Each structure stands twice: as structure tokens, then as C-alpha cells.
């Protein structure tokens, strides 16, 4: 585990290079994520935070710079299933039972049935839905579906979890509850997380570090060390330290927005 979970050096991504609709989605990104760390990417639309996540996941190729995931090339990390992924839409397959959804990555790895079953049950217990294995996804609430999506992402015990606004579609109460659950799960499993979000309180509550990004072209402008310690609960949300960090991130975002306003319309 001495390898860095993510190591980006001068990473850039250009879409439609050389064509009239060329977009500089990311330029010159330097970022390291240590094992066990929780890092959030935050910024306005078009700042490249989702692009960065997809570069780490090898769903997109870097245009420039060097990117290592678990000390390997991103492609190798993907082939080795070194990471799990969760999206804004839980994206459970509606024709599979909850257990079968969790088993999906294991099936693709060629695990045998008994082993898959046991692991799915272990994951159901981890996300505190031990009796819902035989339910169909549409019988679950939005929050429960998102828990199953997290269970699926972690089923193969990957060291790294990549999340793209996973709680964006949930109501505020469920959302705060899921944040606490995610911290508990990551604490228990020692999983490293890279988390894309639009919400400042969510980023501060969850993260060891918040990476503030800005558009036009997409880049990192600030990295805020949260430093609220490992143990966080509902009371954390009411401490002065929490508010101070929210203010710090908000000001970093505002500063980046002024800087980013050159040449682009900002709404």
C-alpha cells in the first residue's frame, strides 16, 4: 500500500483536437491521492472534474502528462479492477435482483457462484441492507439503491472508489445520512475515495482534502486541507471548524470564478 492511489503530473485532456469545436477540458493537473485518503473534486460545470475522474478510471485517455493509478498505467489498473465506480444514477440493472447486481463485477471476474453469494451477503451487511438481497431494484428507495450501487462498486474489494456525484439525486435528509454511511464504510474498509460533487458542505464533511477546480480551461486552482479529523458525525456539521472550511472552499470557488470569467460567460 505504499504506492500512491493516484498520481497525476501535468495531466491534460483536449476533446476534438485540431477541429473547430476543440475543447480544453483539463490543463496541467498535478494531484496526488494517498492510500486511504478521501479527496473531493468540486467546481462549476465545465471545470473538468468529471473528466479527471474518467481519466483516472481509464474511461478516457489523457492527451498530455502522466497519470498513475495504484502505481500502474490507468489501463492496467482498470484491467486489474483496482477501482470501483458509482454514478449519480444508481444504475442498478432492473432485471437482476439486488444480490445479483452486487455480484455483477465478480461474475465478470469469473468467480464461482458460492464465493459470489458469500461476498454479496458480506457487502449487503456492510451497507446495512442484509435482508434485501432477493428484492428487485425497483422495490428499493433511492437511498437504498445508491447503497447497493456502493456495495456493487466495492464488491471486488478494490483499494480505490471513484464516485461521480453519487448523492446528487437524493433528498437532503437521505443525502446527509448517506454521507455518514459512506464515511463509515470507507473507514471500515480502508478504501481510498475520489469524489466528484457540486455541494460544498458535502465536500467538506466527507473529505480530507477538497480540490477546487475552475473552467476555461479546466484546471485545479486551490486545494483545501479540511483537517477535521477522521471521526465525523452529525455534530461535526455544526462546529465552527466545519463552517470555516465551508467558507474557505466557497472563497476559493469564488476566486476561481473571477479568474475563470475571462473570455467565458459565467452564469
Amino acid at each position: 500500500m505504499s504506492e500512491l492511489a493516484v498520481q497525476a503530473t501535468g495531466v491534460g485532456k483536449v476533446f476534438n483536437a485540431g477541429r473547430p469545436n476543440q475543447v480544453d477540458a483539463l490543463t496541467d493537473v498535478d494531484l496526488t491521492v494517498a492510500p486511504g485518503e478521501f479527496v473531493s473534486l468540486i467546481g462549476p460545470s465545465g471545470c473538468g472534474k468529471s473528466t479527471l475522474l474518467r481519466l483516472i478510471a481509464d474511461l478516457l485517455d489523457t492527451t498530455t502528462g502522466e497519470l498513475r493509478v495504484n502505481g500502474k498505467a490507468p489501463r492496467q489498473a482498470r484491467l486489474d479492477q483496482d477501482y470501483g465506480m458509482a454514478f449519480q444514477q444508481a444504475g442498478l440493472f432492473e432485471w437482476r435482483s439486488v444480490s445479483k447486481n452486487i455480484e455483477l463485477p465478480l461474475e465478470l471476474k469469473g468467480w464461482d457462484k458460492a464465493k459470489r453469494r458469500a461476498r454479496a451477503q458480506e457487502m449487503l451487511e456492510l451497507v446495512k441492507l442484509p435482508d434485501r438481497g432477493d428484492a428487485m431494484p425497483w422495490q428499493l428507495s433511492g437511498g437504498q439503491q445508491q447503497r447497493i450501487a456502493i456495495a456493487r462498486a466495492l464488491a471486488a474489494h478494490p483499494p480505490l472508489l471513484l464516485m461521480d456525484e453519487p448523492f446528487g439525486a437524493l433528498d437532503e435528509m437521505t443525502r446527509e445520512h448517506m454521507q455518514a454511511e459512506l464515511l463509515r464504510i470507507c473507514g471500515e474498509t480502508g478504501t481510498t475515495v475520489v469524489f466528484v460533487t457540486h455541494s460544498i458542505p458535502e465536500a467538506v464533511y466527507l473529505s480530507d482534502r477538497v480540490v477546487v477546480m475552475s473552467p476555461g480551461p479546466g484546471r485545479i486552482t486551490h486545494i483545501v486541507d479540511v483537517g477535521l479529523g477522521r471521526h465525523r458525525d452529525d455534530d461535526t456539521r455544526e462546529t465552527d471548524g466545519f463552517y470555516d472550511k465551508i467558507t474557505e472552499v466557497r472563497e476559493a470557488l469564488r476566486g476561481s470564478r473571477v479568474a475563470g470569467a475571462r473570455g467565458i460567460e459565467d452564469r
Partner: protein
Amino acid sequence: MRRLRPLWFGIAAFALLVVMWEVYRRWIGEWLDTRREVGSVLGFKLLPRSSELAMPAVGDMLDEFGKPEVRGSGTSVFEAVLAATFRSFTLALAALALGSLVGIGVAVLMARFKVVQRGLMPYLVISQTIPLIALAPLTVTWGGEITIFGFEWEKWTSAVVLGAFLSFFPIAVGALRGFNSPAASSIELMDSYAASWFQTWRKLRLPAALPYLTPAMRLAGSAAVFGVVVSEISVGLTDGVGYLILSYLQEGTSRPAKVFTAVMGTVVLGLLMAALVAAGDRYFSRNRPKEGIA
């Protein structure tokens, strides 16, 4: 029983049809025949006259089922129609199976290779504009000339191929839409697992296509029946129910009700096929949420 409701509606609609038929042939049609000026607009006869030859009584049609097929023959019309309907049903099933296989195969290729989709789609559309009647005689000439893996091309092969030719199109179109229906994030999820294209197809695209395949199968089922029944007549396949209509029609003046027994055979054939497709849908979507795409 709420589930049986459509069945009762179906029976009621059929009874209404029988009543309307009888009322028209008994009173309206004959009355019109005696009064030339009624029912005409500017000298055109809008309402058809009827006679015993054009509209036999429903009772007579039912009676026909009990009579021998030809004078002195041991088989009744009922047995003949049943045998012919069953024969056509097996051919239509074979046509649907072949059409599904080809349709899904084509859709897989089109979903996998965008080039194939762009190149093939116009030809698929054109293929459906060729009249079946024009193709049927052509396929018959293949008989005796084409042998596939030692398998001789016969007249029934033509009927099956023509039925499949009509039924593969809705399946290809429906399956292609279904294969391309998963959300981008679902595809990314499979990519993140480093799943192969085939694994993504098998675990994601194929099950996602099921709601799209149900209406496609319904269309393909009736297309297969239509294709087989029509090609029986065009290729001269004498043991199917389509050809039976043609041969019973020869006795239009002596036994006008007889042809309607064969027509009822084709109706039963269509209903059987629809029921089979519905049962298949019920089986495959048993674990799905009830509201889907219509």
C-alpha cells in the same frame, strides 16, 4: 378476475360481430337488393347488397365443419381445417424462429459496428418494400437447385423463408433500439469492469433490449403468419390453411359457407401466435417492474 377481462371483451366483440353479420345479411342486405334507389349516392351503390353466396349464415358455416370435406370422404371439414391450420402454424413458428434469429443477428452486427448499421439499414428498409408475391415464385425455382448441408429446398422451405423475410425486419429494428438503449453510465460501468464487448452485450444490452423486443415480436408474429399463409398460395403449398382458402373458394357456388371454415382457421392461427408471444413476454418479464415502455 381482472386478468381475464381482456378475454371477456374479446368474446363480447366476437359475439357482436356475429350479430352484425346476421342482421345485415338477413334484413339490410336483401332489403337493399329489392330497392335499388336506397343506399345509392349519385348513382353509386355505397352499401353492398348481400346474397346467400356472398354472406352465408354463421350457422351454415358451423354446419360445414361437420360435413365431409368432399362427397364420400372420411375426413370432415373440421379435421381438414384443423390439420391445415396446424401445418401452417408449425411453418409460421419456424418462420418466426428463423426471422428472430436473423433479425437479432443483424441487430447485433449493427450495434457492434456502426459501419454495418449505416451500410445495411437502407437495404433493410428497401427489402420490406419488395412485394412478397414477386419474391414467392423466385424462391420456388430454387427448389431442387439449392441444397444446404444436404438439406433439400422444398415448397414449405419457401413459405418459411418468406415468412421469416417479413418477420425479421421489426425484430431487427426493435432489437437494435433495445441494444442501444442502456444509459451511458451503465456502459461506462461495464467498461470500468474491463468487460469485453460480448460480456457487455450479454449482461447489459441484451436484457435491456427485452422491453423493446416484446412489441417487435408481436409485429413479427403476425408478419410470420401473414407471410406463410400468402406464400402457401403463391408457391402452391397445398397442405396449409392459406391454400385451403383457395381450394374451398372453388366451391363458392355449391358450398358458399365452406370457405369461411378455412378463414376461421387463419383467425385461430393468428390468435395462437399472438397468445404464444404474449406468454413468452409474460415469462421473460416476470421480474420486471410493471410499468415499462409501451
